[in-house]
């Protein structure tokens, strides 16, 4: 039987953590783009678009991420579409992040005083101009802390993709455990790596929030 040093274990885990980071980045960026579109639908003047966005957000917030991953992976598989694990994982996480980001950002848009809409309207601006030049710049400032905070949820969410067979940090933990029979050491290290990824982000989100409360001006 081969002996594994702690260093061997850690090296393998860190190697796999690249995929956690990459999947998190893709999910967060993709979720941001889709989320922005859902946000625009959510605050649009068209009732149909608003309904759609509300339905979308409720659907993805109201079901477990794990079920969404299963549906993306096995569901499409049943339909005869062969979906690789990375694609199922990426798309499910993007759609899931989009729902949460859209809802976070909607709160930020609604936090902008109603008088800002009226003043910009009375100056002749159209709806997109109001959003672009008046509303979103103000919403953006308050949106940064909760958005950074949500990125932590995305990183933790990627752990679930191990279940559909995507080899990221958690899955690597299982594989390494099966080879070494040292579950406590392995999962301890896995947890530490997650912590090393998440903790700076949540600290950063908190400090951003504090700054926002101190200086309520963004220039």
């Amino acid at each position, binding site marked *: 039987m081969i002996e594994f040093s702690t260093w061997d274990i850690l090296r393998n885990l860190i190697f796999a953590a690249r995929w956690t980071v990459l999947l998190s980045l893709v999910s967060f960026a993709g979720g941001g783009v889709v989320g922005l579109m859902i946000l625009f639908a959510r605050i649009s003047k068209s009732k149909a678009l608003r309904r759609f966005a509300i339905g979308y957000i409720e659907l993805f917030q109201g079901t477990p991420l794990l079920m969404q991953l299963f549906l993306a992976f096995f569901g499409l598989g049943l339909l005869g579409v062969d979906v690789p694990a990375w694609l199922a994982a990426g798309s499910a996480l993007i759609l899931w992040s989009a729902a949460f980001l859209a809802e976070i950002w909607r709160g930020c848009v609604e936090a902008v005083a109603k008088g800002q809409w009226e003043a910009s309207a009375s*100056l002749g601006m159209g709806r997109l101009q109001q959003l672009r030049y008046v509303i979103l710049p103000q919403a953006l400032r308050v949106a940064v802390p909760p958005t950074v905070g949500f990125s932590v949820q995305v990183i933790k969410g990627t752990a679930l993709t191990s279940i559909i067979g995507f080899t990221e940090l958690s899955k690597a933990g299982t594989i390494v455990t099966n080879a070494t029979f040292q579950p406590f050491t392995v999962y301890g290290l896995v947890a530490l790596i997650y912590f090393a990824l998440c903790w700076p982000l949540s600290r950063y989100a908190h400090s951003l929030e504090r700054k926002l409360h101190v200086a309520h001006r963004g220039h």
Partner: protein
Amino acid sequence: MSLIAVTELKKRFGANEVLKGINLDIMPGEVIAIIGKSGSGKSTFLRCINGLETVDEGSILVAGAQLLPDEVHLKALRLKVGMIFQQFNLFPHLSAGRNVMLSQMVVKKTGKAQAEAMARRQLERVGLAHKFDAYPDELSGGQQQRVAIARALAMEPIALLCDEITSALDPELVAEVLAVVRELAAEGMTLMMVTHEMKFARDVCSRVVFMHEGRVHEVGPPEEVFSAPKTVELQRFLGHGHA
């Protein structure tokens, strides 16, 4: 020809009829004070003229053009009629100068240099040329309201609607804002202002409109309205006729 013509204007919020048939013609250069109890529909009336509220019945003509609720007509209307609010509503993320420049560049597609020159001119006009780079939260309430006036003027409107523009100000700051309005009136700007400043209304306005329960209850030149109110409601509002 009248500049603003309001005919049988009605506005409901659900079952609550707030404007019950308003008729008012305003000539170019007129300065109209709108007075009345809180809840009598003064703000709603002004907001209808600026298209911030949709109209249920009746018509509003501004410089001969009908107010219609689609974005093209609304934009055309708002280029003609500016509005100043009680709460200033400056854009807090932009400097005073940028506040005045933004809508020129975005709505009228004015070039930056030209927009900036206009902004400096209008800030000068309200006595704030030196505050071009100051942000709203570095300005007093009176200064903020004057920037808001400059911002509206930069769009070169033919009329300005003012809704209690001094009501949110500390008493010592009211005069500087009223001085600017007085100046505009003297230059011939058409003004409709909801106000509680009776002395100002008496001095500056050409006509006073007394609104009561969603109607124009009494209207006339200030001497008449203030010195010889005809209706009991106006007498009561002005504090006469309790005896």
